[in-house]
């Protein structure tokens, strides 16, 4: 393809080009296209420019992972150090810890979220009283609208040592209090519940919509054959929404290397004692950047995430495309 933006200039600056009739033909075609498309170009320009600035301009900055970054020298003049940052990162057990935590917790989240929201959707699908159905939907969908900062404060009301709801309840039952924010072993479970609470409503409504899209004829036929409601769920509802479940599963697996920073930062209250089980790649990168000021390490961990994440997304997308091209990202 010709460089489109340079095309008009070239024509003026270099009259020799006009001699080549083929080239001038192409140029005039490009010009015509530009004129014909000028409205669309101007319409799309602000959006495209914003994406170029905020998503593409940072990309060359990944070289920071290979530099000994000094703020006073700037990115370009800081010394190259090859793979040293990566060597440091992988020499400690940090890289191992954050990778395992990220992948392990995301795996649990994906499974519990699919099972949980599916069960919820099946239950919601059975409700016959409209008013109640609306109430249930609102109640489970509600957490989706709350920011992680607020979820963090919700958590504090339930979990804080001195007067949180859970410890007060343990008191009443005559049991020992638990110092939740200092007990790392409890947190995979707490975060799984939090994740389920926050997202199950959204996903159950997605599944519910798919269930309501199933033709009633299937159920009528099954009823005539004397199939129980339970049998109908197993034999009709679930098989018919399985494609959607698989697609959602694969798309989540594609993002298995990316953690939900807000949950890990606010819900754990960034408690250092919890890092062994809750420190993930995203929180580590943030901490290395903002609290430790170690740009090289932060950059190395970030690039590691971007590259491996890119691969998992590509693989997941490739599989999705083979199953259902409509649902793939591209």
């Amino acid at each position, binding site marked *: 393809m010709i460089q489109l933006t340079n095309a008009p200039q070239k024509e003026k600056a270099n009259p020799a080009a006009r001699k080549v009739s083929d080239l001038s033909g192409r140029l005039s075609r490009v010009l015509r296209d530009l004129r014909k*498309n000028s409205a*669309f170009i101007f*319409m*799309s320009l602000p*959006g*495209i420019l*914003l*994406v*170029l600035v*905020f*998503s593409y301009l940072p*990309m*060359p*900055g990944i070289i*920071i992972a290979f530099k000994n970054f000094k703020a006073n020298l700037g990115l370009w003049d800081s010394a190259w150090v090859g793979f040293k940052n990566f060597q440091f990162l992988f020499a400690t057990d940090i890289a191992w810890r954050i990778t395992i935590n990220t992948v392990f917790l995301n795996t649990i989240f994906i499974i519990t979220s699919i099972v949980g929201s599916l069960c919820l959707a099946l*239950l*919601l699908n*059975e*409700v*016959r009283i409209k008013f109640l159905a609306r109430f*249930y*939907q*609102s*109640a*489970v969908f*509600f*957490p989706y*609208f*709350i*920011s*992680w*900062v*607020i979820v963090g*404060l*919700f*958590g504090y*009301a*339930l979990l804080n040592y*001195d*007067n949180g*709801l859970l410890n*007060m309840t343990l008191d009443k039952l005559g049991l020992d209090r638990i110092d939740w924010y200092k007990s790392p072993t409890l947190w995979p479970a707490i975060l799984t519940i939090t994740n389920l*609470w926050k997202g199950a409503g*959204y996903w159950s*409504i*997605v599944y519910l*919509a798919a269930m309501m899209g199933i033709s009633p004829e299937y159920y009528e036929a099954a009823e005539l054959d004397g199939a129980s*409601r339970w049998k109908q769920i197993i034999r009709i509802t679930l098989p018919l929404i399985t494609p959607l479940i698989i697609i*959602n599963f694969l798309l989540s697996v594609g993002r298995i290397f990316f953690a939900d920073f*807000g949950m890990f930062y606010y819900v754990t209250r960034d408690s250092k004692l919890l890092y062994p089980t809750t420190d993930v790649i995203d929180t580590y990168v943030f901490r290395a*950047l903002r609290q430790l000021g170690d740009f090289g390490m932060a*950059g190395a961990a*970030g*690039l590691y995430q*971007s590259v491996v994440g*890119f691969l998992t997304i590509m693989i997941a*997308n490739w599989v999705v495309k083979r199953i259902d091209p409509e*649902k793939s*990202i*591209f």
Partner: protein
Amino acid sequence: MTTYRSFSMYRFSKNLSQWIVNITLMLVSFIFLLPLIVVISASLSDEKALTTQGYSLLPQQFSLAAYEYIFMGPERLVRAYSVTIFVTITGTLLGLLIMSMLAYSLSRQEFKFRKPFSFILIFTMLFSGGLVPTYLLITQVLHLKDNILVLILPYLVIPWFVFILRSFFAGLPQELIEVARVDGASEWRIFFQLVLPLSTPALATVGLFLILVYWNDWWLSLLYINDPNLFPLQYLLYSIMRNAEFLTSNNSTSMLIGVELPTQTLRMAMVVIAMGPIAIAFVALQKYFIRGALIGSLKG
């Protein structure tokens, strides 16, 4: 319907399963709403009673002290509210305009750069430079630190929303656009006077999600805002979560001196105040959000 089984047996088993379903869902709903109930109760509690008797489902010694304090209008809170409202309104309107213009051109077959431009958007969903390069760009190159624009610009174009809008525009009756074109209407006129009015459902859905994105954002302020005058609501909440005195550490609140700060109840009342608008919008406009969830999952 029930010819094949004894009528009363059938009614009974059907009713029983309905009861089981409803009781289960009642319990689930209660568990989902539990943290909300606890927080609202705490915000309506007396500070001392909350400290000694702890959080519970009902207010400990009903008291409005925390709300009284809030409605005295501490300057920090009023500022944070105005920052959030300004950012949300500006970001949502500007984002809707820019994204729908982009999505519309991408939906038109005649547009020559449709494919490369779509690819530019899609690629950002696969690979990103990551936090560190973005942070350096915004702070060192664009110098947007402590600038209100940094709370707006990065979310103006969200590829996912662009594709939702694009598939909606592509589904509009193309003959209408063709007729308008034959009548001599310019592309701009077609877009603003024909396409946009026809697209209010899609615009409403994406607009509501944008409102949610801006209202709930703490990420950009966590990274790029140090000036307390530019703290949005969510970041103010985070700051008082770490230190409740933060709300008063400001010389212009002298009128509040002498009032003892109800630390714990105040935090919880702040949560309620920050959630309020979103909760009301959510209840009132739920069907749009649900529709959005569906478009998002079905992607055109």
